[in-house]
């Protein structure tokens, strides 16, 4: 298959773009595989890619119930950052960040990763100290972080209201310069193409309807396209984790599925050149290459699989947006959508062997899944291949909740909607 490059674009332009081939095949499922990955989203696809690339395991199928990338990889607000408080999270997300920095090359697919920085605004001295604690925690793990003054912030984002008369005046901020954003769909497509080129079968419109078992051990899956056996079955189904685990007979998990809404405005000429978060509520914003302002806020706050949001959150998010940018009142919200987030009891993910023999579990991404995509797949592939976690994901066990080893970056306890 041809490499993508400026040259290939030029060549194909002369032949009327008639020679481009499908980005990935559309194979029928085989009777059995070494590994089945359930979930054709970012994490499932990257898991398959790294199984093949890092561990030489290529007899792999990725099963996707709908169209590839139909879940959260195509519904998020595309932020990539590693500005966490607790070391387990920071180490993992920084590993991911380093992978992002070379991802387009690795995949021969431009995922448009752009390191325009992520700035958390602080509005009280106490909050500024909190951010300093976090920034210093990052620095002590070799991750970039800087404090910014109001004047520096105003220079970076001139549209921001930094006046002292604001209801919550801005006192400063914590900046991670290497943070950024990427083109979300391209990540799914790039991994799909990369995995496919290494022999992985990506099977769309193939919904898992049950698990094949030998005693406790999982030996495969039944699907809408027939039974498929596998030595190892790995789940990377994010918001659908509860549903799929139920098929395996596990009704209760330390997870709730919640809707998170996202919004985009009409295209505008460049006005915000970084990712920005508001400290006195829950709001984040960046601007896409097409010019749309992409933003979001809090979860709707109740269990849902509907990918459909409620009105109060829309109002809340827009109110917070204008508290920062009173000049944008006449800009218009063009689209809204919802994604289903698998919220855990401490806001941190789960990447582990089990909980049943033959099963591997990757879930609990809350709303941090997109930035984790490379490291999640990389660590999960390691865990599947070696039957033990890598150091990076060793803390992200399922039993950590019960043992009092939670990784609670927000300190909110077992209330998933608050993480």
């Amino acid at each position, binding site marked *: 298959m041809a490499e993508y490059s400026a040259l290939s674009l030029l060549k194909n332009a002369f032949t009327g773009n008639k020679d481009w081939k499908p980005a990935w095949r559309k194979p029928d499922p085989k009777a059995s595989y070494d590994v089945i990955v359930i979930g054709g989203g970012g994490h499932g696809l990257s898991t398959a890619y790294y199984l093949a690339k890092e561990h030489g395991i290529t007899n792999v199928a990725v099963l996707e119930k709908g169209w590839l990338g139909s879940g959260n990889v195509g519904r998020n607000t595309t932020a990539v950052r590693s500005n966490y408080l607790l070391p387990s999270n920071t180490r993992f997300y920084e590993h991911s960040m380093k992978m992002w920095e070379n991802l387009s090359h690795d995949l021969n697919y431009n995922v448009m990763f752009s390191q325009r920085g992520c700035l958390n605004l602080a509005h009280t001295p106490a909050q500024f100290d909190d951010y300093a604690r976090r920034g210093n925690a990052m620095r002590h793990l070799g991750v970039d972080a800087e404090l910014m003054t109001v004047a520096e912030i105003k220079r970076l984002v001139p549209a921001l209201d930094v006046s002292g008369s604001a209801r919550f005046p801005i006192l400063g901020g914590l900046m991670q310069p290497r943070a950024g954003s990427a083109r979300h769909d391209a990540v799914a497509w790039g991994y799909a193409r990369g995995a496919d080129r290494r022999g992985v079968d990506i099977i769309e419109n193939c919904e898992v309807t049950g698990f094949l078992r030998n005693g406790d051990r999982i030996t495969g899956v039944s699907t809408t396209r027939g039974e498929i056996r596998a030595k190892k079955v790995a789940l990377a189904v994010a918001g659908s984790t*509860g549903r799929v685990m139920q098929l395996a007979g596990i009704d209760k998990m330390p997870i709730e599925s919640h809707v998170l809404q996202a919004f985009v405005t009409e295209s505008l000429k460049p006005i915000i050149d970084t990712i920005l978060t508001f400290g006195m509520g829950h709001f984040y914003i960046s601007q896409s290459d097409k010019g749309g302002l992409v933003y979001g806020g809090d979860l709707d*706050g109740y269990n849902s699989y509907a990918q459909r949001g409620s009105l109060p959150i829309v109002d809340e998010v827009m109110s917070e947006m204008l508290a920062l940018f009173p000049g944008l009142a006449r800009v218009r919200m063009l689209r809204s959508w919802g994604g289903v987030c698998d919220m855990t009891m401490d806001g941190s993910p789960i990447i582990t062997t089990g909980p049943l023999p033959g099963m591997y579990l990757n879930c609990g991404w809350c709303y941090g899944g997109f930035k984790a995509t490379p490291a999640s797949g990389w660590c999960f592939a390691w865990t599947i291949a070696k039957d033990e976690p890598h150091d990076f994901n060793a803390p992200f066990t399922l039993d950590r*909740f019960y043992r009092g080893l939670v990784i609670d970056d927000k300190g909110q306890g077992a209330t998933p909607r608050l993480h």
Partner: protein
Amino acid sequence: MLITCPYCGPRDVIEFTYQGDGNRQRPQPSSQDLDAWNAYVYDRLNPAGDHNEIWQHSGGCRAHLRVVRNTLTHEISSSGFARGDHKAARHRLETKS
């Protein structure tokens, strides 16, 4: 989304706070069964379909409600006081016409 509070009548979801899975059983206070406590604190039913939930009408009468709501459609099939002893009939919303 509207939730019908048995006291206040149908109200916008903005007035309510979600308190999660209503199937959780708190062990007896003296229970030493750590598994039972762990299950109560950390494990949740998370069905795709009807879900038995606790909501507080925090922006209204502040009563806790037990609500059966479909997580796929958001349709609510029943709602009542979480505590059994408020007689719903006595507290039907008054509407003269």
